[in-house]
């Protein structure tokens, strides 16, 4: 079974530029998460999708961040314009359905973003 794929693995941009990250979850996984992990901290949930619908984006800075999951499979996360404090690793995770509605999250390798 292939894991969660993310690209690019690394990205360096200047502040005020735009950047996009891509995630391909495990086949058949309906739920997809995007997290931001700043060095030394735990992952912080940005947005959660159920199929192609958003179920939680309460911590997404909507003035500069956006995300979509077309057709309920791949997802992209965009930052426009980037700030210095956006430097972090952006993690994508997915879960499959279980009888009780929740199970382990499978994480991708992450995209390390550096904003100069």
């Amino acid at each position: 079974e292939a894991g969660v794929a993310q690209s690019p693995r690394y990205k360096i941009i200047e502040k005020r530029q735009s950047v996009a990250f891509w995630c391909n979850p495990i086949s058949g996984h309906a739920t997809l998460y995007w997290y931001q992990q700043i060095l030394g901290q735990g992952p912080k949930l940005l947005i959660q999708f159920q199929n192609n619908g958003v179920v939680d984006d309460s911590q997404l800075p909507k003035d500069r961040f956006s995300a979509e999951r077309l057709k309920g499979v791949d997802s992209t996360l965009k930052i426009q314009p980037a700030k210095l404090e956006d430097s972090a690793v952006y993690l994508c995770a997915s879960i499959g359905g279980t009888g009780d509605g929740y199970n382990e999250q499978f994480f991708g390798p992450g995209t390390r973003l550096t904003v100069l």
Partner: protein
Amino acid sequence: SQKIEQNSEALNIQEGKTATLTCNYTNYSPAYLQWYRQDPGRGPVFLLLIRENEKEKRKERLKVTFDTTLKQSLFHITASQPADSATYLCALAGTGGFKTIFGAGTRLFVKA
């Protein structure tokens, strides 16, 4: 606000000993509590999940306890090995996996 606290100081133990990591939380009534392992430069890897109505769960050398009254979980690694050296993250989730929050993690070093 919802908060998870894990030991911020690294835990150093000798090979063969039992490592015990603590996770405390406030302002949250989780349906699920999980432990993940994270190695440098990699995404977290799932280890164990325990539900709100469970007290203890085991998997090989791993054991998790969950006390919803104390709002605390303990994570034990018995017969620790240098390969167990990593950062261990505690995570809480609500029903359906909503409102997932992670702690900052505890770094574990196992010395041979």
